[in-house]
């Protein structure tokens, strides 16, 4: 466009340069074209010209009318000007009159504003006047908050005008109502039914009413104490009826949450708040309050712990462990999660209770185990005595069965107890992971206190039968035998089993802890008591046989006796008894610990009859009434045989046990014989008896020479004590013995 505008060649443009345009046309166009162009331009000019003419014509009228209008307007304006002047004068008069009015009204307006101020004041006073009644109404409605707020509103005014006589009435009224209100609040404060929230509300209000915080704090605590005490009493009442979980829940939801609430509100009300209000005293008060609170919490927790402890204690006599553990866990968790008091870690106390409970539980279990063991012992005792009464020869597996069932039940019981106690260590139990608990529980309580203690109890019980034996002759000897085998069985594995299982279950590393009782130690005591029992058994049985032999020797008049025809019945009794002991022992103990030279029965028997006869008949068959010879022979014999310990320890096999019994019996026989004086027939009776014993006793002992030797001594002693030492023909003795 710009170009167009500035283009001097544009016919219609304002910068049109006719010369340039002509030059250009002359240069560029041909003649014809120029001519054409000239005509065209002429034509255009003509059209434009005519167009102009029409335009002018057309606009002419408009010009005329416009001129007319302008003329009219000129007139109008002139009119306007005059009117305007009029208006200005009018306006001036208006302002002056308004000023005038203003001046006149000023005084009245001031009075009005004064009056409205008085009105507002009056309204306030009205509130004050109404205050007692509103307060009263609020009191009646029990909306103490509102009442307090109302009072606080008016308080300053009252303070300001309190000494004016007209307000004194109101003030005193208010104050009396206020004291009433305070009393009411205090009452609510002490109302046992009020919830903790209400309590805090009351305290809050009282504080707002400027009651002394210390007093309030004390009062608050006493009230809280009362309430908690009630809770505690309630808990105590309930503790007997409810089971322990319910009890703990009750404690948590009732007592503990109340206590928490109290502590929290106490913090809110006294400790944190005071800080903001009275800056100068706050530190002292805060300390005071904190100490009070601590003491309060301590006291109450102590009571609560006592209760819980009691409940836990009582529960342990009856309850099952998992319930107990669950309850303890809840209890511990609850205590642990609350930090009621900065200085005291109640979790520790709670842990203490839990540990105590663990210990008690172990003890209770130990007691149960002991009782159970005692029970099974009595049962076994009974069954031992009754079977003996009913059938002389017991079923062969009976004793072994008894033993196995005893071992099994004891082991199973212990295992059961361990399983039961493992509940304490379940991973989801909170206190189980505390080393404080774990150490004392696993090692001191379970392993040492329960398992080791029980094992010691087993040996102690077993041993008590030996010690008591003198005063309690009713203990069946078989029981001693059984117990000794029982101890051996324990030594050979069950001790290890139980201890290792304990270690495993309770994650005890026996190598790390030197305070632990070692397995070998227990095994040793087991071994010792087994030995003791077995020795005692041998002594008892030996004594029984001895007693028979002793009576048989002591009560007979050996000087006036007839020629022996039979073996005395006592000898048969002795042999019978010994073989019955043999069969009893055989049920529990192996024949031999180490093989001795017992060859096949039949050949041995024949041998044993013949061999000693040659050996020792020779001593006595041609016995001359010269005591020196025989004494010499006997002494020689003694010289070359080993010394015999009569009450010696026996080994854990049948042969050794039987040998012990026979030794004791025969030695007694000998000592009794030595105290008597015999006639010929008396000696011969002893000869028959010893031969009979010879025939039947060899098979029970490891070294038959021992029996031969002892019997030989008996006969020798009898011969010494005989007035007329003449022995019977061996063949006759044989016949008598074989006849039975």
């Amino acid at each position, binding site marked *: 466009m710009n170009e167009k505008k500035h283009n001097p060649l544009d016919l219609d443009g304002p910068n049109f340069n006719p010369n340039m345009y002509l030059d250009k046309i002359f240069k560029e166009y041909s003649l014809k074209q120029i001519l054409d162009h000239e005509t065209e331009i002429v034509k255009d000019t003509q059209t434009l010209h005519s167009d102009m003419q029409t335009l002018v014509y057309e606009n002419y009228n408009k010009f005329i009318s416009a001129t007319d209008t302008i003329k009219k307007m000129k007139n109008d304006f002139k009119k306007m000007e005059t009117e305007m002047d009029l208006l200005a004068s009018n306006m001036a008069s208006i302002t002056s009159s308004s000023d005038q009015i203003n001046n006149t009204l000023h005084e009245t307006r001031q009075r009005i504003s004064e009056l409205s101020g008085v009105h507002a004041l009056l309204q306030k006073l009205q509130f004050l006047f109404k205050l007692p009644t509103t307060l009263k109404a609020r009191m009646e409605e029990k909306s103490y908050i509102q009442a307090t707020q109302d009072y606080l509103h008016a308080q300053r005014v009252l303070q300001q005008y309190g000494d004016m006589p007209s307000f004194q009435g109101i003030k005193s009224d208010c104050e009396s109502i206020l004291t009433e209100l305070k009393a009411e609040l205090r009452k609510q404060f002490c109302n046992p039914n009020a919830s903790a929230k209400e309590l805090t509300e009351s305290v809050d209000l009282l504080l707002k009413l400027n009651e002394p915080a210390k007093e309030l704090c004390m009062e608050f605590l006493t009230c809280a104490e009362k309430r908690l005490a009630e809770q505690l009493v309630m808990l105590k009442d309930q503790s007997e009826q409810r089971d322990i979980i319910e009890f703990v829940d009750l404690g948590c939801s009732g007592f503990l949450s109340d206590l928490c609430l109290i502590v929290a509100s106490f913090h809110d009300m006294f400790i944190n708040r005071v800080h903001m209000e009275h800056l100068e005293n706050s530190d002292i008060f805060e300390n005071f309050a904190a100490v009070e609170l601590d003491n309060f919490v301590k006291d109450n927790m102590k009571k609560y712990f006592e209760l819980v402890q009691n409940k836990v204690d009582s529960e342990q006599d009856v309850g099952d462990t998992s319930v107990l553990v669950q309850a303890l866990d809840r209890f511990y968790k609850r205590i642990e999660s609350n930090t009621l008091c900065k200085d005291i870690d109640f979790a520790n106390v709670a842990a203490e209770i839990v540990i105590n409970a663990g210990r008690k539980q172990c003890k209770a279990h130990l007691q149960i185990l002991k009782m159970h063991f005692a029970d099974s012992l009595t049962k076994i005792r009974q069954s031992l005595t009754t079977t003996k009464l009913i059938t002389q020869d017991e079923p062969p597996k009976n004793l072994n069965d008894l033993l196995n069932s005893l071992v099994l039940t004891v082991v199973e019981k212990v295992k059961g107890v361990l399983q039961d106690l493992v509940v304490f260590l379940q991973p989801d139990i909170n206190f189980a992971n505390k080393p404080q608990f774990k150490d004392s529980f696993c090692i001191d309580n379970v392993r040492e206190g329960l398992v080791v203690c029980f094992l010691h109890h087993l040996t102690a019980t077993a041993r008590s039968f030996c010690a008591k034996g003198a005063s309690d002759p009713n203990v069946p000897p078989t029981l001693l035998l059984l117990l000794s085998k029982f101890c051996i069985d324990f030594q050979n594995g069950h001790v290890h089993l139980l201890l290792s299982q304990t270690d495993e279950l309770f994650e005890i590393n026996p190598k790390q802890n030197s305070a632990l009782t070692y397995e070998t130690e227990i095994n040793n005591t087991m071994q010792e008591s087994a030995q003791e029992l077995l020795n005692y058994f041998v002594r008892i049985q030996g004594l029984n046989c001895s007693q028979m032999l002793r009576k048989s020797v002591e009560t007979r008049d050996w000087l006036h006796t007839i020629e022996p025809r039979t073996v005395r019945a006592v000898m048969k009794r002795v042999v019978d008894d010994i073989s019955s002991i043999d069969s009893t022992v055989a049920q529990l103990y192996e024949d031999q610990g180490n093989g001795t030279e017992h060859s096949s029965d039949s050949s041995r028997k024949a041998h044993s009859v013949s061999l000693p006869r040659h050996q020792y008949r020779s001593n006595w068959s041609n016995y001359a009434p010269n*005591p*020196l010879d025989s004494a010499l022979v006997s002494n020689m014999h*003694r010289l070359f045989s080993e*010394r015999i310990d*009569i*009450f010696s320890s026996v080994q854990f096999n049948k042969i050794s046990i039987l040998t012990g019994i026979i030794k004791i019996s025969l*030695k007694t026989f000998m000592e009794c014989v030595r105290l008597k004086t015999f006639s010929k027939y008396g000696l011969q009776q002893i000869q028959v008896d010893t031969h009979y014993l010879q025939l039947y006793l060899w098979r029970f002992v490891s070294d038959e020479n021992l029996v031969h030797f002892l019997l030989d001594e008996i006969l020798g002693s009898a011969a010494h004590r005989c*007035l007329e030492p003449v022995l019977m023909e061996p063949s006759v003795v044989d016949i008598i013995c074989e006849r039975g």
Partner: protein
Amino acid sequence: MDNDNSVIYGLEFQARALTPQLGETEKIRFLIGTQSLNQTNNQIHLIEFNEEISTLKTSVFHHSDGEIWKITSSPLDANKISTCYNALTGENGCTMKSAILKLPEIENHDAIENLEILTELDFSTCGSEIRTTEFHPNESNTAASLTDSHLILWDISDTRGRNISSITNEGKTSAKFTNGKWNPHQNGNQFSCATETHIKTYDIRSGELAWSLDNAHCQFVRDMDYNMNKLYHLATCGDDGFLKIWDYRQPGSPIFSRSDHSHWIWCVRFNPFHDQLILTASSDARVLLSSAASVSSENISETLIAEDRDGLDAKQKLKDGPLQWCEHEDSVYCAEWSPAEPWVFASLSYDGRLLISHVKKSLKYQILL
């Protein structure tokens, strides 16, 4: 075996009666009575031990009245002894008797003589088995005999013993007296008897039971001995193989109890001078010398010394338990301390072997120092 400090004396007969010559406090003398059914063979041997040269001097006397079951000596008169013996009466019969005998003043080694009978005792009404005749500890004219059923008090001033009083064993008829002894304390007014498992002590003035230890042992009580140096202390032994010391004011349980023998204990003796030493003889053919220092009369002074000198002497104090033993070949029924020499004791086994032994020197010094 501690034979290196023992002297052996062999008899040709079996024997179960031994006593020290209690009245003789200069020489170490023991008396043995033999036991042979061939009654004329029986002898009493008086053995004197010369400690310095370790030799024995013996005198033998006949005791042709019968086999000797028990021999005792008078503590007041060295020459008085008593024997309980079994005399044969005709065909296949025998009765027990007891008599007070007199040892001759002058030693005569040429001939073996019978001992003079001072007092004969008549037991016709008081039981058949005579256990012992014990001289009264203080009164020379009094003795007590114990039979299976009676305790008889004799006046022995005459040739025939006068029966002063007799106490009958009440209770079970089958419970026989087995052994007895005077209580040397209490003015000699008490006589203790063993019957079965009990000890019964009678007050001889009234004949009443003074005190008793019931079930002192769980089998027969064989012997007892009073501690001369400590009141109320009594040692007992029995078939259960236990040696027990009692304070008889507390009859419930013994104050000392050991079982070191492997068979019955037949005899127990306190050392009259050092009563922590106790001798026991057993049918396991052993004689044990044990210490009961913890209950001995020397215990208190010893602990005082131990406190004074502290650790050095503490270990020197004797421990309770066996100290020394002698082995025999047969049952030992008797063991006795010498009343003349505190460190010498004799033991007699059934096969007729007497062993005179010393307490080991080390022990001796330990006790003395």
